[in-house]
């Protein structure tokens, strides 16, 4: 019998994990966004970032071509939702070389701009994400909704610039506290809107935090600035009936891990965590085996290695990931680079099929 008639659909397998049950195998969750635009033949990533219909098609193609849970991260319209709403100017990635949204002119450039800043109503800016979630839920794709408030990665890339916010951390911490509070308040309003509009069992809020990582920040600063806001935002979401959060601890968070800050953020039950390639699967399983984990292939290696090598790297990851108590998905340690050869993504799926059977 062909394999595709004998195994769970990847989304079905993902939902099995969410219920705390064991799916038939480890699933491939490649963190596929820009790569999906390339699968559709687009020269740039702009259409996938701007138009829900294109984004949905890209996610369905990813699911079906790779038998993968992409995951369907509803980034469409995020430029308006994250940047435009605050008065920042942005650009969708229509240039063939662009890899994501770009902040062109931030709303906040001076301390006086912070004084004038008011938290906008997110709802008029959420048309893109609403449509994407609605379509994905109807397609039974279990989408993720980006909700980034509280992180420096949000305030520092949407309201002001990263260099500015990092400078102010030492020179004008009062301004940073106000910016983070404003972005947290905004995110909570986003959550209120989303929880009223969509069944909370059908989608998952997702956040990520590259600027908050220990590549740029010490653990003490992390604990003082983003951490309390993120705890608040996650808890508010859970209080609104959201069962769990999916957090991508982007880049190097090893100092925050050592300080015990990751587990201070409420993730729900079981909560989904992914880390950058700087955090080996062994560490993840040992410390966070009670969460659903995913990872942790090195993104550049996915571009440069052969498909046999990728399959072997995947096998090693799966071997460790399967030791987690709440389930594991094979994934790239950050967004899957668009130029990764499709055969290498397929090698991940193939490794899941060959080595990813859970012990009964």
């Amino acid at each position: 019998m062909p394999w595709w008639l004998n195994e769970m659909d990847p989304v079905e397998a993902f939902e099995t994990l969410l219920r705390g049950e064991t799916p038939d195998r480890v699933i491939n969750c490649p963190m596929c966004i820009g790569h999906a635009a390339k699968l559709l033949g687009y020269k740039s990533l702009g259409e996938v970032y701007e138009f829900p219909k294109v984004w949905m098609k890209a996610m369905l193609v990813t699911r079906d071509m790779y038998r993968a849970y992409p995951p369907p991260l509803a980034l469409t319209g995020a430029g308006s939702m994250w940047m435009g709403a605050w008065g920042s100017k942005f650009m969708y990635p229509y240039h063939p070389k662009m890899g994501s949204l770009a902040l062109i002119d931030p709303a906040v450039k001076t301390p006086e701009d912070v004084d004038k800043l008011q938290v906008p109503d997110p709802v008029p800016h959420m048309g893109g994400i609403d449509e994407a979630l609605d379509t994905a839920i109807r397609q039974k794709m279990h989408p993720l909704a980006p909700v980034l408030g509280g992180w420096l990665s949000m305030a520092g890339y949407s309201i002001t610039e990263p260099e500015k916010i990092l400078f102010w951390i030492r020179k004008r911490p009062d301004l940073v506290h106000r910016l983070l509070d404003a972005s947290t308040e905004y995110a909570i309003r986003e959550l209120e809107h989303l929880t009223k509009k969509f069944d909370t069992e059908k989608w998952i809020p997702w956040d990520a935090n590259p600027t908050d990582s220990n590549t740029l920040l010490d653990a003490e600063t992390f604990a003082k600035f983003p951490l309390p806001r993120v705890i608040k935002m996650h808890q508010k979401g859970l209080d609104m009936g959201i069962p769990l959060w999916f957090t991508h601890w982007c880049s190097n968070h090893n100092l925050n891990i050592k300080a015990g800050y990751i587990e201070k953020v409420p993730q729900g039950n079981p909560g989904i965590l992914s880390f950058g390639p700087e955090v080996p699967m062994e560490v993840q399983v040992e410390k966070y085996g009670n969460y659903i984990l995913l990872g942790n292939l090195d993104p550049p290696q996915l571009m440069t290695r052969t498909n046999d090598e990728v399959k072997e790297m995947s096998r090693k990851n799966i071997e460790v990931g399967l030791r987690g108590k709440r389930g594991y998905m094979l994934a790239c340690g950050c967004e899957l680079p668009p130029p990764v050869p499709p055969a290498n993504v397929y090698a991940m799926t193939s490794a899941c099929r060959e080595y990813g059977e859970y012990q009964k």
Partner: protein
Amino acid sequence: MSKEELFKKMSDAILSGDRDETTRLARESLKMGLDAYETLSAGCVKAMGIMSNRYDKGETFAPDILVASDAMYGAIEVLKPHIKVDPAKIPGTIVIGVIEGDVHDIGKNIVKILFDLGGFRVIDLGRNVPMATFIESARENKPDILAASALITTTMVGLEELVEKTKEAGIRDKLKIMVGGAPLSAEYAEKIGADAYAPNAPQALKVAEGLIRAQKGGG
């Protein structure tokens, strides 16, 4: 105040990110008749060297580097018009920029600061730099090193294209190419044909100095 005391105070002010104090001390040094280049070397460069080593060891982080460099530039603004540059003392020229499509430039800016302090002549092309601009600048400025960065996996492929463009332009063998940025590795740098890779800003300065030494036959 002796000049040693002034240099020490300058260094302390940079390390604590006190721009008002570094500006005041720079003016004071000129009033004392001190050589501006000596003040820059003994006060500013030394302090940023300490900061750079701390950063390399994971003892200090990006916000500290940013406030220290702001304080340092306060002093440089005062001292620069009084510095007489001896071309023989400049170790080399570096053209630096963030690859096309990528607007993440914190890392590049920190590397640029350290190159400045290392005495290099630095031409900073900024972020989201078109390939043609890199090539044009390389032709015009004849740098010893072309340094380019990418912070996201989606733009890092542009670095390979940059290496190819230098070949097409006939300038590949006239300069060294070094690359950096969070998703990169030495393996990737080698694969795309770059000459060198640096995992962080302090290492970038060391790598650049090494490339120059090798170019000049110093090993």
